[in-house]
């Protein structure tokens, strides 16, 4: 397990480096500097600004300075929000994003797996159709369509749930964002766990268990469930990325002051460093979470560890 962990850890490093290099090059490949859009400045002022942000150095030097900062958790200053650094902005607004994303993920796993098991154990034409149809709906309808439609019916028309964020005290404001974010994942996980459980239930060792007289309930609980959940576990990596992407629009729609909202604002304001910093932060987060999923997978499934 130690060797497996080390190998995975080493594998993640080039990915993170690639992210930083790609993101940095993309921003620097752009025509014009970050302050070109503002009023024409005198050359002296421009030179001062360039010196302040180290833009007068050669590109490789700038890159290594940036890389050095990133490795120490410093993503540089924001070009638009004066007096704060990108790292501070992320740290301030991360908790609410984590809260919503985490709750959505948890909800998606619990409900998705439960639905999948139910569908796999009651295999009639109707449940099959309902689950598959619902799953296709959930996969096809984007979060930014789902969330406003929920908002229209549940908060504007029926007034059951609040739509605003800052004007609502209590936890009811979490309901709509979390459900909108989780629903597509519920659909996908339900489909995945249904297919996987059906597959496992038709394998030889289940037939043996059945032949020994075990009840359906204990077969599922003690023998089928663990192997059937492996594909769900390996889907966690992509799911994290999708939820992170979705949280950007969810925060925008519901006016939640999370990292995603700052990301969009930064993108619209052409706050290069903020956008660059958040992209790197998101990418590193996804790579790290993927690493954790991989390690969990290795912990549960010994075949993975043994494979080179």
């Amino acid at each position: 397990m130690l060797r497996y962990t080390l190998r995975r850890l080493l594998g993640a490093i080039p990915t993170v480096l690639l992210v930083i290099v790609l993101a940095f090059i993309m921003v620097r490949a752009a025509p014009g500097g970050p302050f070109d859009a503002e009023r024409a400045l005198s050359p002296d002022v421009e030179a001062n600004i360039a010196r302040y942000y180290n833009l007068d150095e050669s590109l490789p030097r700038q890159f290594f300075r940036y890389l050095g900062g990133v490795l120490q958790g410093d993503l540089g200053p924001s070009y638009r929000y004066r007096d704060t650094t990108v790292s501070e902005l992320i740290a301030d607004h991360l908790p609410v994003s984590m809260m919503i994303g985490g709750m959505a993920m948890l909800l998606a796993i619990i409900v998705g797996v439960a639905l999948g098991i139910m569908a796999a154990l009651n295999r009639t034409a109707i449940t099959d159709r309902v689950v598959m149809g619902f799953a296709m709906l959930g996969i096809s309808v984007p979060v930014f369509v789902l969330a406003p439609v929920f908002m229209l019916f549940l908060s504007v028309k029926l007034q059951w749930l609040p739509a605003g964020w800052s004007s609502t005290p209590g936890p009811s404001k979490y309901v709509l964002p979390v459900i909108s974010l989780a629903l597509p994942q519920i659909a996908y996980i339900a489909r995945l766990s249904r297919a996987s459980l059906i597959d496992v239930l038709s394998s030889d060792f289940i037939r043996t268990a059945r032949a020994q007289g075990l009840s359906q309930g204990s077969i599922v609980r003690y023998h089928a469930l663990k192997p059937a959940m492996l594909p769900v576990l390996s889907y966690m990596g992509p799911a994290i990325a999708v939820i992170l992407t979705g949280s950007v629009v969810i925060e925008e729609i519901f006016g939640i002051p999370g990292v995603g909202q700052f990301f969009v604002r930064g993108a619209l304001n052409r706050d290069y460093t903020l956008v660059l910093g958040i992209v790197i932060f998101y990418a590193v987060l996804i790579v790290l979470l993927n690493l954790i999923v991989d390690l969990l997978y290795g912990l549960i499934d010994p075949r993975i560890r043994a494979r080179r």
Partner: protein
Amino acid sequence: MKTAIARAFAHRTVLVSASLLAIVAVFAFLGPVLSPNDYAETDFDELRAAPTLSDLHIFGTDNLGRDQFVRTMLGIQVTLAVAFIASFVSLVIGVLYGAVAGLVGGRVDAVMMRFVDTLYALPFIFFVILLMVAFDRNFLLVFVAIGAINWLDMARIVRGQTLSLKEREFIDAARLGGVSLPGIIWRHIAPNLVGIVIVYVTLTIPQAILMESFLSFLGLGIQEPRTSLGSLVENGVGQIESASWLLLIPAGLLALILMCFNFLGDGLRDLFDSRSSA
């Protein structure tokens, strides 16, 4: 080829989703021509008019008094155009990359595929946003950027198919018969890739649509006065309390188009990709 088309028509999901898409496309391209209204013309006497037959505002008007029907149809046009062009870009990159990896094989293949694996772990949509910021929301860039990030699946599929084709007897036979390498690629390998490539392009299209509408929704994709389904949904969210049709109609159409492409792709895969049906 004839039997393939016949089989596709016999498949109900494929038939229904393809017909729905055809209807939507015909409306999208004919509607603006037939409608007396213009997509950018504002009528300040009729702000947020509900869907009505007068003046043929059958989808109503938006918050600036512009005809929502024409705007929606133009939005669909842009959405479909982005989807097809972006898918074409990803098709070219994916097929070339995958075919080279598959044909050359060995260490080159291993390195190329390792690179693809690494790219898989990256949150690409954020890189596209970064590009849009850096290049100031360039219209053409939307097309290319989305295409440039959607080629990974295609590369994998084509590589796998090429690798297995390469080992088949008829390729050996052709080689023994003295057919040159380009001849083998062009006459024997390429035709066998066409089917699977078409299937996976169909599955790339909804992904491209999703990305484009996501960007446009955030205001980072298609810019005013041009519009796309994503920008229309975004505008609808702003009018949610006073004019819900501005949200519901584009949202519904976007969902319909995405579902049709997904069902179409799934159906075609069932029909023509024997490996995945297991």
